[in-house]
C-alpha cells in the first residue's frame, strides 16, 4: 500500500497561489490583505525545542509494561512509592503527563490546561524516512518540506513561504509591523524565504528600543554583481530595523502583563522560555500586529543524565519550564482578552530512541509528541500511542502513516483553519496536498465578518454524551450560504459527511445521528467557503 496516497493528491503546484490578489499598498499586515487569506488578526506562537525532545518521557504510556522494560533507569513509573513523582493520566486516555509538566507549575500546568480545554496533545508526529541529524531534521521541520534528498539545500521556512506569497513585493514594500518576531538568537530559517527574512530577531527589547535604530538611509545599488546584491541586502535590513524599532517601542511602552502573572522578564529567573513568553504577551497586549512569534528553548539533546527515578535531571527541568511558560501565558492571555486569537504550537526536530543508552540518557530517535495551546484548540490526545512492537532496525519507532502523524499536517491546519487559507494555499506552501489535522478551531477575530456566527460557544452538539448518539448541531448563518459538515477520526481521517446543503440565513438546528459510528473521539468540521469551524464529539456505545 502506498502510504503517501493519503497526502498526495495530484502533481506539485506550479505557480504559487496567492492568498489574496489585492496588492499590498496598505502598510499593515492585518488590513493589508484581500478578503481571503491571512486578513484575520490571528497570531501564531511557535515554540522550538532544540535538541530533540524525548516524547516517550513527556507523554508516557505508563501502563504499558514494555515502557519500563525498555527504560529501566530513566522511566517515570506509575508505581513510584512517592505518589507525587508518578505520571498523571490525561483525560480519559491511556497516556500520562510527566509530573514535571504539572507539579510546581502555574495553575496545575498541562493538566490544568487540558482540563480547561486549552491544550491539544499530538502524539507520534514525524515524517517518513526520518533523518537523525539535528541540522537536517531541524531543516525538514522548519522548511515544511520532506520530499528532497540530503543534497538538496533547504533554505526557506514554511512560515517564510506563507508570507512570501502574501507580500509579492517584499522587501521593497514591507508592512509597518514586523510579520514575524523571534525572541533571541539569529533569525531562524523558519522565518526566511527566498525574498529574505520575513521577520526579525530581538534579544533584549529594552536594548533594541534604545539602540536598534541606525538612522540609515542609503540609495540602493542598481548593478547585478554579488557586491551589489549583498549591499542591497544589508541596506534592506538596516531600513527594516529602523522602521520596526519605532512600532516595537510603542507596543512595548503600551503593553502589559496581567496583574499576578509574573514571568520574571527582568531577570529571567524562571527561565529563558518563560521570559520570552512574557515578552510576547506584553507586545501583543501593546498592540503589535506581528502574526508569528518564535520562542526557543534548548537543551533537549539529553544523551547524558536525562533524569533519575526522583525526576531530577535536565529533561524534567525543561518540561517544567515549558509547562510554566505556556500556563502563565494562557492565564495572562485570557485575563487580557486576546486568548481567542492566539494559538501556540511546539516543534522539535525529532524524538529520542525508546531504548535508554548507557549514560542514563537517550539518543536521537524518530517520532515525538507536540503540543498546541490556546482557547481555540481541541483539547484532546491526537495520534496513536507508541507501539513498542513496531521498531525499525535502529530500534527507533517506525514511522507509519496509519499510526503516526505527518508533521506537515500540523502546519496545513494552521494555514487553513487558523490563517484562513485554502487547500491550494496550503499545497503551494507545503508543495503537496497535506490533509490538515483538525486540532484547531478558527480564531475568534476582533474584526467582524464571519459568514457564520456561533457566538463564543462554538458548535453545540446538544446531547453529546448520551446514547443513542442522536442530537442537534446549532449554528447561525448571517447570510445564505453552502454549508458542509464532516466528521474526522482522531487521526484526522475522513469518517463521514453529515451535511452538504445550501442554507438560508438564520438559525439552524441540524439533526445528527451518530449511532452507526464506532466509539471514540471525532472532529466535527463545519465549513462554508473559506470559513471552517471545528469541535470534538465523543461517540459512546
Amino acid at each position, binding site marked *: 500500500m502506498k502510504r503517501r496516497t493519503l497526502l498526495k493528491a495530484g502533481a506539485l503546484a506550479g505557480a504559487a497561489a496567492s492568498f489574496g490578489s489585492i496588492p499590498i499598498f496598505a502598510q499593515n499586515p492585518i488590513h493589508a490583505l484581500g478578503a481571503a487569506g491571512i486578513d484575520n488578526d490571528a497570531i501564531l506562537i511557535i515554540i522550538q525545542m532544540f535538541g530533540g525532545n524525548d516524547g516517550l518521557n513527556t507523554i508516557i504510556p505508563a501502563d504499558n509494561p514494555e515502557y519500563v522494560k525498555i527504560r529501566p533507569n530513566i522511566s517515570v513509573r506509575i508505581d513510584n512509592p512517592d505518589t507525587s513523582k508518578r505520571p498523571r493520566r490525561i483525560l480519559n486516555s491511556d497516556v500520562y503527563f510527566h509530573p514535571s509538566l504539572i507539579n510546581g507549575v502555574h495553575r496545575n500546568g498541562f493538566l490544568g490546561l487540558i482540563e480547561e480545554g486549552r491544550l491539544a496533545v499530538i502524539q507520534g508526529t514525524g515524517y517518513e524516512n526520518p533523518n*537523525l*541529524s*539535528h*541540522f*537536517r531534521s531541524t531543516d525538514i521541520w522548519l522548511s515544511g518540506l520532506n520530499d528532497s*534528498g*540530503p*543534497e538538496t539545500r533547504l533554505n526557506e521556512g514554511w512560515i517564510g513561504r506563507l508570507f512570501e506569497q502574501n507580500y509579492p513585493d517584499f522587501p521593497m514594500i514591507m508592512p509597518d509591523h514586523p510579520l514575524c518576531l523571534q525572541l533571541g*538568537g*539569529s*533569525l531562524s530559517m523558519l522565518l526566511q524565504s527566498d525574498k*529574505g*527574512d520575513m521577520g*526579525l*530577531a*530581538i*534579544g533584549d527589547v529594552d536594548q*533594541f528600543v534604545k*539602540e*536598534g*535604530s*541606525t*538612522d*540609515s538611509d*542609503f540609495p540602493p545599488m542598481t548593478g547585478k*554583481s*554579488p*557586491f551589489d*546584491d*549583498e*549591499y*542591497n*541586502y*544589508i*541596506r534592506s*535590513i*538596516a531600513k*527594516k*530595523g529602523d522602521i*520596526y524599532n519605532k512600532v516595537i517601542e510603542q507596543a512595548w511602552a503600551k503593553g502589559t502583563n496581567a496583574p499576578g502573572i509574573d514571568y520574571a522578564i527582568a531577570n529571567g529567573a524562571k527561565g529563558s522560555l518563560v521570559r520570552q513568553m512574557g515578552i510576547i504577551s506584553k507586545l501583543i497586549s501593546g498592540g503589535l500586529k506581528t502574526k508569528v512569534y518564535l520562542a526557543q528553548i534548548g*537543551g533537549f*539533546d539529553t*544523551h*547524558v543524565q536525562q533524569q533519575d527515578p526522583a525526576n531530577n535531571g*535536565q529533561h524534567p527541568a525543561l518540561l517544567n519550564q515549558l509547562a510554566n511558560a505556556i500556563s502563565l501565558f494562557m492565564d495572562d492571555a485570557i485575563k487580557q482578552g486576546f486568548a481567542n486569537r492566539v494559538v501556540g504550537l511546539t516543534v522539535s526536530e525529532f524524538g529520542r530512541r525508546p531504548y535508554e*543508552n*548507557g*549514560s542514563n540518557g537517550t*539518543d536521537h530517535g524518530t517520532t515525538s509528541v507536540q503540543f498546541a495551546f490556546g482557547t481555540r484548540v481541541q483539547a484532546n490526545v491526537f495520534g496513536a500511542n507508541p507501539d513498542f512492537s513496531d521498531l525499525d532496525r*535502529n530500534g527507533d519507532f517506525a514511522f507509519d502513516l496509519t499510526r503516526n502523524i505527518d508533521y506537515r499536517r500540523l502546519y496545513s491546519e494552521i494555514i487553513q483553519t487558523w490563517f484562513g487559507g485554502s487547500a491550494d494555499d496550503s499545497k503551494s506552501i507545503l508543495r503537496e496536498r497535506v490533509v490538515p489535522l483538525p486540532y484547531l478551531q478558527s480564531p475568534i477575530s476582533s474584526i467582524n465578518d464571519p459568514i457564520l456566527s456561533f457566538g463564543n460557544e462554538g458548535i453545540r452538539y446538544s446531547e453529546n454524551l448520551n446514547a443513542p448518539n442522536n442530537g442537534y448541531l446549532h449554528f447561525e448563518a448571517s447570510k445564505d450560504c453552502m454549508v458542509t459538515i464532516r466528521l474526522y477520526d482522531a487521526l484526522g481521517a475522513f469518517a463521514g459527511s453529515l451535511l452538504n446543503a445550501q442554507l438560508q440565513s438564520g438559525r439552524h438546528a441540524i439533526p445528527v445521528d451518530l449511532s452507526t459510528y464506532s466509539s471514540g473521539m471525532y472532529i466535527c468540521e463545519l465549513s462554508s467557503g473559506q470559513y471552517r469551524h471545528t469541535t470534538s464529539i465523543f461517540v459512546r456505545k
Partner: protein
Amino acid sequence: MNGTSINRRDFLRGNLQSKKNEQLLADSLAPYTKPLDKRTAAHLLRRLSFAPTQKQIELFIGKTAQEAVTILLGDPDNEYQPTTNPGWINSVTENPYGADIYTRLQIEGQWRSYHSDLQSWWIKLMIGENTPSVEKLVHFWSNHFTTEFSYDDAYIPPQILFRQLSMFRKHRLGNFKQFVEDVTLDTGMLIYLGGYLNTNRRPNENYARELMELYTTGIGHYTEGDVKEAARVLTGWKVARYNDEPARNGIYNSYFNPTDHDTEAKQFLGRSIPARDPAFNTEYLVKTEEIRQLLNILFDVRKVAISRFLSAKIYKYFFYSNPGYDATAFIQECGTYFVQQEFELYPLFHAMFSSEHFFSENIIGAQIKSPTELICGVSRILNKVVTQIPANLSAMDEILIDPPTVQGWEAHHRWITTKTFPNRVKFARDVITSFTDAELIAYVKSYPSYDDPIQLTKDIVELCFPVMPSQDLLQVYTKELLLQNQPDYEWAEMVKGTTAAARGIRALLNAIIKNPAFQLC
C-alpha cells in the same frame, strides 16, 4: 577526474562533460597573472588576513599573487605559536560536578572569565598580526572543527580550548588527514561530542556522525551502519580534565583505556578493520591500527566527497558564502587538486588564493564580514585599541569558540540581522567617539594625502570599502562631511588646527561605518 570514480549524481548534474569543459575547469584554478595593484592587494589582505593597513597594501603592490600569497601564508611547518599567553592556561581545574553548589558556581564563573579572557587575547593576536597571516586560518579551523565552550548544561574548561587553538595553529596548513586524526583524539573534541563516554558497552555515536557529516564528507556519503561501526572503532578514549581524574598523558590530554575499547572486528564503508587480540589492545596500536585505518578508509573511499566538501568550506569562508552554481566547477577543480596533493592543505590554499577566480569581480567585495573581521578591521583601519571584546562579539552573535551549534556559524546573511546590524554600527561608532580631536588629526596625518581633502577622502574610503562608491557620494563625503561645507582650499589650514577639522573627520568616519559597504569585504 584523476582516476577517481564518477558518481551518478555528478553525471546527472552534467558536471562531467567534454574535454573542452575540463580545460575550462583547469583554467579556473590557474594563477592570476597580473601584478597586484592597490585594489587587488587590499582584496587579498582582507580575505586571507584581518583587514589591511596602508603599509601592508604598499608592500604588496607590484608583487604577483603567488609571491604575495607565499608571504601571507608563511612557512607551513612553522607553528608560529604566540609568545605571550594568558596566565591561567596551565592552572589546574577542580571538578565542579558533584561539588557543593557554591564551589561549582565559583569554578564555572572562573571558566567564564577565562573564556572571555581567551577571546580578548585571541582577537588582540589577530589585530596585532601582519605577516605571515596565521590567525585567520586558525579562526577558519575553529569554525570548521567546532567546539562549544558552553553546551547543554556544561562547560569545556578554557585551558582545553586554548590547547585546541594551538593544535589548529600547528595543522593549519598541514596534511588534512593527519589534522583530522589529531582532532579525533583532541581533548576538547572528545568532551564536546561525547567521545569520552563512548565505550564498548555503551557506544556513543555523536562524534562518529559529525566526523563525516560536518568535518569530512558532508551528509549523504555514509549509512547509519557506518556511523555505528565508526563509533565502535572510536571507543575507549578518555580525557583528563580535573585534578581528581587520572591523567595518564598529563593534564588536559586524552588517553586510552583498553577495557572500554571494542576489540571485535568492524565493517566501515564496505571494508573491514580486523578484530584485535586483547594482548595488543594498547593506546599506540589502537591509534595507529584502528583510528588511522578508519581515516585511511574514509579518505580513500570518500576522497572525492572529502576534497570537494573541504574546498567548498574554504570557498564559503574565504571567497563567497553564497556562490550558487557558478562556483561548482571551481570547487570541483580545487577538490581534484586537493586529492592530487594527497590532502596537503598548503598547496590547496596557495593555489586557491593565487587563482584568477579569487581575483574576479564576482568575489571582490561580495563577502559579509564576520564580527571578528569587523572588530579587527575597525581596530586596524583606525589604528585604535578596541575594548570590551567579548561583549561586542556577543552583541554581534559570534562568541568565539562557542558557536550556536556543532555546525558552527552559518555566516553570510545570518551575520546581518535587525539585532546585529545596529550593534555593528554602534561598535564602530563607539570607537570613533573614543578618539580625541587631536587623535583624529593625528590619524588623518598618517595618510600621505592628508592635506588634499578630495584625495584624503578617497584614500580613507578605499581602505574601508572593498568597492568604491559613486563620485556623487564621494563628493558628499568630502564637501558636506569632511569639509563641513567649507571650500576645498580651507582644508590645509583647517587640518593645522583641531576642532573644525576633527568635527569633519568624525562626521566622515561616522558616515562610512553606517554605509552597508563597510560591512562587506
